[in-house]
């Protein structure tokens, strides 16, 4: 197992957000993390990346226990985060954004700009002058440049134009074909279901359902996802 999250409990100050989340991602697997708003998807991701470390439970990545690890160390183990809201470094150019965190591997500047040709055109432009979709591509590119073993996409297509969404989903499918392990949070079920190998559903800070996408019954969808 590449990523193993078991029974984590995470707090923001005194208020508890996660009450026992279990989640696994295998090498080369695409796992969809689902649930309605406020159920703990982003908190789970923040816990994995150790931006908000859990107070109880265990997270291991590639067999290494992440407890008491600082965020940059976790990232160095090979967790590449594409944060919600496409957070690039606004006053760096596209190229600077990409190389700032680059580590050796198959994802080089050339490989990333091949995946997102739009970034090649915008190489010397500042990130804050890009469109939302381009910023999202840049955020994904930046995560890829760290050559992660697992890439985490938090709401990667939220608030983007349909054309851009289409491009981003195409790039996610390309990554899957290349055997990249992905943990993805998204609300577009129609795009998510064909890509996902497995689904995990959160409800009020707990894992309530894990299984194959085709086993996701009408009943489960109605109860936990409201779709």
């Amino acid at each position, binding site marked *: 197992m590449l990523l193993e999250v078991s029974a984590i409990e995470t707090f923001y100050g005194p208020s508890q957000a996660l009450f026992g989340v279990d989640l696994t991602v295998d090498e080369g697997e695409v796992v969809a993390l689902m649930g309605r708003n406020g159920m703990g998807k982003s908190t789970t991701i923040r816990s994995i990346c150790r*931006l908000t470390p859990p107070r109880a439970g265990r997270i291991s990545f590639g067999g290494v226990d992440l407890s008491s690890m600082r965020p940059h160390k976790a990232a*160095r183990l090979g967790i590449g985060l594409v944060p919600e809201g496409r957070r690039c*470094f606004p006053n*760096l150019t596209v190229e*600077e954004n990409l190389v700032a*965190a680059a580590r050796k591997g198959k994802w080089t500047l050339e490989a990333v700009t091949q995946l997102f040709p739009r970034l090649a055109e915008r190489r010397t*432009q500042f990130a804050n002058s890009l469109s939302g979709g381009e910023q999202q591509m840049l955020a994904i590119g930046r995560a890829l440049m760290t050559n992660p073993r697992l890439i985490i996409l938090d709401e990667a297509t939220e608030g983007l134009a349909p054309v851009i969404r289409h491009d981003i989903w195409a790039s996610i499918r390309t990554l899957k074909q290349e055997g990249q392990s992905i943990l993805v949070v998204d609300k577009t079920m129609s795009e998510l279901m064909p890509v996902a190998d497995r689904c995990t559903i959160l409800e009020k800070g707990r894992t309530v359902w894990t299984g194959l996408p085709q086993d996701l019954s009408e009943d489960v969808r109605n109860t936990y996802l409201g779709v």
Partner: protein
Amino acid sequence: MRQHLRRETLVNAGLAVLLLAAPAIAAMAGEPFYVTLATRMAILALAAVGLNFVLGLGGLVSFGHAAFFGIGGYAAGILATHAFNQEPFPFGLSGTNQMLVIWLAALIASGIVALLIGLVSLRTSGVYFIMITLAFAQMIYYFAISWPAYGGEDGLSIYVRNAFPGVNTLDPLSFFLICYVLLMIVLAFFATLRNSRFGAALQAARQNPVRLASVGVEPFRIRLVAFVISGMITGLAGALFADLNRFVSPSMLSWHMSGELIVLIILGGTGRLFGPVAGAILYILFEYFLGGITERWQLFLGLILLAVVLFARGGLIGLLAGKVRHD
């Protein structure tokens, strides 16, 4: 943006030529005073380039860079005094009047102190960082005052300007050229580093340290390296400043000096390559011309600074070349 960059390159080139041509003309006209004025500009610009690393690129407001400036100055003063009096140091080391050795000593000494100060102060941020860097600089200031072996409050004189192979350093224009060439080398180094991966990470750490950590780069280490480089450059400028005045005193270490360096950068343009150069030229000109009119020239400097902060946040470079990075 491309156009901005080209314009900035032109402005930079103009400043570089101006700073070189003015003292050359003054020297030909037999006005060594103006050569000395230009030398001060070059040295203060160099000191501010050091600070620009952490302040401009890293967004870290160090209010203690006088510490490095003074340490560089004292390195020059102490080594020269020992050489002049032929008093060896312990462990068989001797003093020297060779600038190259003195610069090396200034770089090493200020680098070590920057490492120690950085290790503690970079764990804080914002106003605490400002205060802790100020506190360290004040500690060194009071140490220098209370150290009678090297002049204490009265400072330390360098009787003969230190030597540089093949150059008569007593000639004002020759000494200016040494300072000018060093400034240009350090500016080239600054430009290279700013455009490198390290420079990108340093600026990313300013914009969002958490985001940088989440892509696997530790902001603390990047900042520490920048802080050490920054302290070393300012230390080098201190050694030159000591040689220019042939005098070192605790005033080089005082918090006024730290403030002056920050003012230079803001006047010229924070984070801009030639910001410190533009700032130093402006500052010395204000000091000279306003100072010639009134004793209270700093009041007017204050008003000008206020105007820059309110209306021209990119400083002089921002006015001439347009805003690029800093909004």
